[in-house]
């Protein structure tokens, strides 16, 4: 310890968020605004008379100078106003609330599956390094990584949905459940438990299994690799050697001394993986027609709705930065060496 307190560390970390968010927001703005072509014409399907385009342009402030637009853009975000879509006049806050909840439900369970599967296989593979178990585990990791979520999802739909007929292949819940379920949080899973509506919960779980497994298994590859490497690295550490020298049973050395420390960096990667997970979520949602934020993004991309795309990108940027801060905080609590 160099004397830096936890509070100083946390404050420094928070201060670093500002430039990062600002850069991401600026990049989103530049990417979507500097591109050639008129976004409003694109949204309306091209070749529209100026009398139609001009009022919309004025309403969205697209007729102002670029720098003013940039200022307005940042100011609106600071005030929590992420804009309204061009094509269907939907405020972004509504998209975040409704579709964001669906994405949260999917990514949460996917992450859970990824961590359980990845860490377990990684631990075993690392412990039995270079044995057939390890090679099998690593091959599993590589193949899982090499499989795009939409392909795994398609195959899962074919096998479990069409051929076996066990599970539904699209949507977040059946229409009946969607109509009858009371919304408290917009997260169906939580809402069903809230009301003690077990029939609805069962329906929701059935809809959740295939998408969450698809996204989870694909993300598991990263956890597997990382856990395996960490176990190998930790098992070579001096303190493990020391534990062995003290005559502690090998099993205890591995499970108590090594695994615990090998898992610390995995926490960090949960955060880093969010970027991969969010990318995968867009594809998974699209494959399973899951009404999440990624599904909306693809829809608005197809409709060439610039403000919707911009708003959703802002949301993603804030989520990514927010999670990275949270992960750093957790790490600082868990591992005092990090508080530089």
């Amino acid at each position, binding site marked *: 310890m160099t004397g830096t307190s936890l509070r100083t560390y946390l404050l420094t970390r928070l201060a670093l968020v500002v*430039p*990062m968010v600002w*850069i*991401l927001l600026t*990049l*989103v703005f530049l*990417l*979507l605004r500097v*591109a*050639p*072509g008129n976004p409003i014409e*694109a949204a309306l399907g091209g070749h529209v008379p100026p009398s139609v385009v001009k009022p919309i342009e004025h309403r969205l402030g697209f007729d102002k100078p670029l720098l003013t637009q940039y200022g307005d853009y940042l100011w609106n975000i600071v005030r929590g106003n992420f804009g309204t879509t061009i094509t269907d006049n939907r405020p972004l806050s509504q998209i975040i609330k409704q579709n964001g909840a669906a994405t949260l439900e999917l990514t949460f369970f996917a992450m859970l599956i990824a961590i359980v599967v990845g860490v377990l296989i990684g631990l075993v593979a690392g412990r039995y390094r*270079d044995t057939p178990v*390890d*090679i099998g585990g690593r091959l599993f990791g*590589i*193949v899982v*990584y*090499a*499989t*795009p979520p*939409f*392909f795994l999802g*398609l*195959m899962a*739909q*074919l096998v479990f949905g*069409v051929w076996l007929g066990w599970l539904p*292949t699209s949507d977040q819940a059946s229409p009946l459940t969607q109509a009858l379920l009371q919304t408290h949080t917009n997260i169906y899973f939580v809402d069903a438990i809230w009301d003690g509506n077990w029939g609805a919960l069962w329906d929701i779980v059935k809809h959740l299994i295939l998408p969450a497994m698809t996204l989870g298994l694909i993300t598991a590859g*990263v956890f597997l*690799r*990382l856990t395996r*490497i960490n176990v*190998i*690295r930790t098992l*070579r550490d001096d303190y493990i050697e020391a534990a062995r020298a003290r005559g502690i049973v090998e099993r205890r050395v591995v499970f108590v001394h090594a695994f615990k420390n090998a898992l610390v*960096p995995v926490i*960090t*990667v949960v955060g*880093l993986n969010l*970027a*991969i997970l969010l*990318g*995968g979520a*867009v*594809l998974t949602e*699209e*494959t399973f027609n899951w009404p999440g934020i990624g599904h909306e*993004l*693809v829809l608005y*991309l*197809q409709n*060439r709705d610039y403000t919707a*795309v911009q708003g959703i*990108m802002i949301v*993603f*940027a804030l989520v*990514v*930065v927010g999670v*990275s801060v949270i992960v750093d905080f957790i790490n600082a609590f868990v591992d005092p060496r990090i508080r530089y």
Partner: protein
Amino acid sequence: MTYVPPARAPRTPHGRARLIALGRATKPIREASGVARAMFWSGVAITVFFILLALLAPVISPYNFNQYKADGHRFAQLAPPSAAHVFGTTVQSVDVLSRVIYGTQTELEVVAIALAMSLTVGVPLGLISGYFGGILDRFLVLIMDAIFAFPYLLIAIVIAFVLATSSIGGGILTAAFAITAAYVPLYFRVVRNHVISVREEPYVDAARALGARPRTVIRKYVFFNVVQNVPPIATLNAADAILLLASLGFLGYGIQPSQGAEWGYDVSRAVSDAASGIWWTGLFPGLAIVLLVTGLTLVGEGLNETMNPVLRRRRFGRFEFEPVAGPVEEAEGAE
């Protein structure tokens, strides 16, 4: 194992130094053993298979990638695999096998262009930023880290979207640009961080003390030490880029259907077929993605496992004794 300390390399004539560097870099691959070796070579075999497939596509492929009739009659729609169409046909009556074979061309072409572009942008930026440091370095690191933290699929999607909507339109170059933008930060980070550690090495100091200009120091002393990190990452990156291209294709931002066959696009078309139990339109292009990405990943991982001990040995090379064989970990950590 004969070891040539890096400090001696500058004294040998120019071409010879390069040869030695090359020999030293490939040596661990030739001498690798066991699992790493098996993984590496099976990866090479798969990759070579696909490269051959791409090169020989016009010869091997039974039909063209958008051909829906032959000898004056149209192929059956959604025909299951048969002798005439080994992988079946799509809803447009196109032969799936031909699309898979021609798809190899598209994937490899786009990924090669994208990799070349991200290397040409990322590596020099990393070299300059890492070597000179200062405000430029801080600025670049801030930007690159911000982009790096963002889901790269989303970056690629937005860029593909913007380019496709603008006058430039979709196509191979648009897809390649989108992929490039997503990967430049990775190369920048890897190269820059390595340059920072190499910059303080005695031989670099010595070169500077002798009055070499920054250009010369970077080109002759820093570059070759840093660039060795790149092949494993570039190979793993190629694997990733194929997934990214397929994902763009799946979302409709890849290659135009008339331009060439693309596996991700084919899988996206197959999603609607799956509801009626039609599996062949999605299975084969999907398997092609998995197989090619697995092959490239195996090569990358193999390179990683074998190359890294070299880097280790180099860093500790000033000592007289042979260092213990280093642990096999990735250089880039968690990707």
